[in-house]
């Protein structure tokens, strides 16, 4: 099981934060669709992965020490060919080493570039009273300002997931606002149930962010993920 391997590895290294690659591997195994994300320790490997996944790709620095990847110059998007990938690799490495010279950088993650969709946030935290709870909300600035999110206590059923997506004030955006296509809400509800089932069975996990997650007319994909383990 990839989940057990990843958790064991993190424990061995005495860290509670998983890398984005690890987080997506785990979520993928839990049945949650994530962008194809693989580790490239070298530039050559980065190009090989990009050719396999197919352009355009995204490159992100992979380091448990760098939390804010964009601020460190560790993210390059919409790379359309071999040359752009090679340049991006060098630039990311140079910038991150300059910004955080002591960071342990395991390499660079090469990811398929998801086509834009409606930005969603899903996540999980542990509440002192109720234990694990899952969250659903619309991503982006609105979620930060209005905190327009819904929660349910784990484990949830499909009916709870339906209530979660219905409860948010920005519900109209899910239904397709001003000519935008509607989001595949049933798929999102399914993802919430999968997330709940997963955390219910995996008590070692303390917090999960799937942010952003792009929702489409048909399906959805996790673009960035973060998992924090129990101390």
């Amino acid at each position, binding site marked *: 099981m990839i989940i057990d391997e990843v958790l064991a590895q993190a424990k061995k290294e005495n860290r509670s934060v998983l890398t984005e690659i690890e987080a997506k591997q785990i979520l993928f195994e839990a049945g949650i669709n994530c962008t194809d994300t693989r580790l490239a320790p070298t530039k050559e490997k980065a190009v090989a992965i990009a050719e396999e996944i197919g352009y355009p790709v995204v490159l992100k620095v992979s380091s448990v020490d760098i939390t804010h990847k964009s601020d460190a110059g560790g993210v390059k998007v919409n790379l359309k060919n071999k040359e752009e990938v090679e340049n991006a690799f060098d630039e990311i490495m140079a910038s991150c080493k300059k910004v955080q010279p002591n960071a342990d950088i395991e390499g660079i993650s090469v990811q398929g570039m998801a086509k834009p969709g409606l930005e969603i946030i899903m996540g999980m935290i542990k509440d002192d009273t109720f234990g694990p709870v899952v969250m659903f909300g619309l991503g982006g600035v609105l979620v930060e300002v209005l905190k327009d999110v819904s929660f349910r*206590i784990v484990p949830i059923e499909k009916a709870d997931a339906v209530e979660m997506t219905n409860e948010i004030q920005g519900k109209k955006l899910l239904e397709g606002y001003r000519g935008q296509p509607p989001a595949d809400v049933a798929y999102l509800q399914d993802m919430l149930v999968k997330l709940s089932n997963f955390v219910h069975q995996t008590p070692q996990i303390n917090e999960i962010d799937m942010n952003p997650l792009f929702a489409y007319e048909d399906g959805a994909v996790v673009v960035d993920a973060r998992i924090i383990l129990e101390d």
Partner: protein
Amino acid sequence: MMDLFFKPRSVAVVGASSNPKKDGNIILQNIINSDFSGDIYPINPGADEVLGLKAYPSVKDVPGDVDLAVFIIPAKFCVDAMKACGEKGVKAVIIEAMGFAEVGGEGTELQRQIVEIAKEKNIRVIGPNCSGIVSRDITTSFFPFKDVPRGNAVLIGQSGLLAAGMSSDLVVNKSLAINKVCSIGNKCDVNENDLLEYFGDDPQTEVISMYLESIADGARFVPIAKRVAAKKPVIFLKGGRTEAGARAAQSHTGSMASDTKIVEAAIKQAGLIQAEDFTDIKDWAKVFSTQPIPKGNRVAIVTAAGSVGVVVSDICAEHGLEMPKLTDMTVERLKDVFPPNMPPANPVDLWYSIEKLGLVKTLETTLAAPLEDPDIDAAVLILAGMSYTMPVLDEKTVQKITAKYQKPVIICMLVGYNEYKNRIMEELGRDLPVFTSIRSGVLALSKLCKYGMQRNKNAG
């Protein structure tokens, strides 16, 4: 196991006193005044007899079995009393004494010792720092009680004093047909989950109202509450709500969470009816315990003053209640009691008919007809505290009409003289839900309708 608290065959009062000012006297008197027919053992090392009952120095000295022991002694003596109960084989203890975890320090340590003995000796404990049980079968509160009804509503309260005060208000004023009240205090052992499960299965309990300051075991609470709420309405007030997300979360999700939001999520998930205030938990219990559950949210308003009808309509709409047109048949039935130039409509206006026929005759048509209307699920009746309303009380007109139809009716009383208003509250309020504001009445009705619609939906 929980039956030992609510239907014990024998009870010991540890700290029973002959002094009528002492809680240990009131508790014993309450047990005597209830329908409890088992053996009662006052425990008091300094007395041979308390209230005509033979007293014993310790629970251990009691000749027969003791199902339940109630402690009303200072906290520092409770540990020894627990040990005595353990030796005696008592399996249920209510500790009403204060001075435990709620005061911290030594009190916390005493409570820890109580829990330890309870676990070791397999004793269930309600409290400490509570007012125990109020019921017809047995009352262990330190407030005096008499004639507790055998109603269908149950109250669960965390605070001892509030539970005692509120239940004595309800019993003395006969304003709610309670069946049991249970105050759980510091809930060192028995908590809301145990009581919800027990009352969920209790055939006498039809409505549960609950006030909690803390939730003991949230992971168990949601599934238990959900199971019970599917069977009977559970009205729930959670105190100590705060927006502050006092959690040291590293995630975005964590920064979005607050206690309030998570408690609200749990309430929705379990299908509980969320109250905002103490008056809600008794007012709504009154509505749920006296009125049939409606199938929908279509309301008729019956009022003497047209302008009141307008405001009631607005408030109904605000709370998700609909005000449909009356069917032709109902309009036809109402024509005779309406002025010739004014067609009957919803709200149903009564003034013309009251002047012609008096209120009793008026209501026999104007309240009955909308309740018979297939497009109406419930009614709001506006009454005034005036002398012309009094025959309605004498003849129990509203009770008689509402008993005929399986549809809920709530009464709002806005204007009038205290003399008559008090009579309406006292007499009509005993049988039916009477409110002194439109908003509180309509809100309560909206909760009932919402519950009914949800239940309909779940039933498919």
